[in-house]
């Protein structure tokens, strides 16, 4: 049976938690719901049309732009945001590598790039530079010129192989 969702309460599974969404218009994007309804401010909103990648999250293990997901249609799916990658104060290897490589400047694109990097390295543990550029092509950074971001991804790949 189809569930009909008017303006009523619905439930999302975010970072392993069950979260009720209340007082929300049912057509809101997942990005809007994460930030404005659930207080998860890590995913950034810039273009709201899938161009910039700063709102990237995982939905059922697929990297997508949360601005292009209608939140109410994601009921029952596993959503992982940047807040679900690692607890505060204990960065993931990807986050640590971004810091060490100097891959963060203003930081606005960083959560999306961290999500994209985790997703890439899950599927391809030893990506070529071309593969890294392709896989991160949906995440726009206006500060770094990308060189240090690519270096950070390569550091993680090397570190995970244990031959750093």
């Amino acid at each position, binding site marked *: 049976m189809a569930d009909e969702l008017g303006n009523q309460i619905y439930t999302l599974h975010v970072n392993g938690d069950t979260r009720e969404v209340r007082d929300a218009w049912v057509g809101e994007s997942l990005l809007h719901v994460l930030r404005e309804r659930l207080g998860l401010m890590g995913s950034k909103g810039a273009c709201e049309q899938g161009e910039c*990648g700063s709102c990237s999250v995982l939905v059922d293990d697929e990297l997508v732009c949360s601005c*292009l997901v*209608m939140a109410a249609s994601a009921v029952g799916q596993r959503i992982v945001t940047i807040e679900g990658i690692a607890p505060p104060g204990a960065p993931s290897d990807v986050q640590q590598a971004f810091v060490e490589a100097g891959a963060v400047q203003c930081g606005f694109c960083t959560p999306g790039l961290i999500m994209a990097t985790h997703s890439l390295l899950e599927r391809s543990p030893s990506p070529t530079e071309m593969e890294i550029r392709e896989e991160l092509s949906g995440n726009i950074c206006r500060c770094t010129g990308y060189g240090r971001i690519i270096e950070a991804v390569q550091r993680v790949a090397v570190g995970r192989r244990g031959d750093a």
Partner: protein
Amino acid sequence: MSVLVPTSLDAALTALADHPDATVLSGGTDLMVEVNSGHRRPEHVVAVSRVPELSTWRHDPVAGSLRIGAGIRYTEIERDPIASWSPALAQAARTVGSPQIRHAATIGGNVGTCSPAGDGLPVLRALDAVVELRSATGTRQVPFGEFMTGPKRTVRAPGELITAIVVPVADGYQGYTKVGVRNAMVIATASVALVVRGHSVAIALGSVGPTILRCPEAEVLAASSADFEAGHLPADVLAECCELARAAARPIDDHRSTADYRRHAVGVLTGRLLRRAFPNG
């Protein structure tokens, strides 16, 4: 506003029968842009991304066809095995948006939106693909050339759902190419698909008319002059085919390009694909 999230094809068709004018939401990469900007506030949405029947494909070697469920995402189309049977569609898929977009966007959504700039559409037109439509009362199959009637206009009736696209598996060369303001994450300013099947050539143009356009004169000339076994098309004929393709385009001036540039690009892209199809000059 209501959002229905059916989890079976029957439930989806029932939802559309109950709300025949509902907006169908698949990957969201077209619709949510309009919803986010406030350009669209659909009264009813039927989200079909969780309908498992739409996310299957089947290769039929006897019929020589590939039935691609409407919910198949570009990520899957750009890779084998689908890419091995439908290489031009895979080429088109690789040019769509970013990885994030291709993880979400579906072939059914591309056909449902039916923008003249939709990257999959020239390939479907050149392949004479068939759109499978279902409603609570029946199923019909419409050739893509009849399905699209104008920019974002189709013959899909209220209550109908695009359930699959059926594409022939062609034996000869097939390719897709496009131009835009840059090479990545760009909407096509002009695009061309070319498919060789047996001793026939099909050429379809995107972004240069209200619908996807075929180039019958260029197709007939190329097919009648080509040596298919040797992969040969005389240079003067190739140039003439490009001219005929340019003449078949019906471009407009808009914020993305001028009509003149679009027509020029059609000639360049057609020549490029003909040289790939007939590499031995």
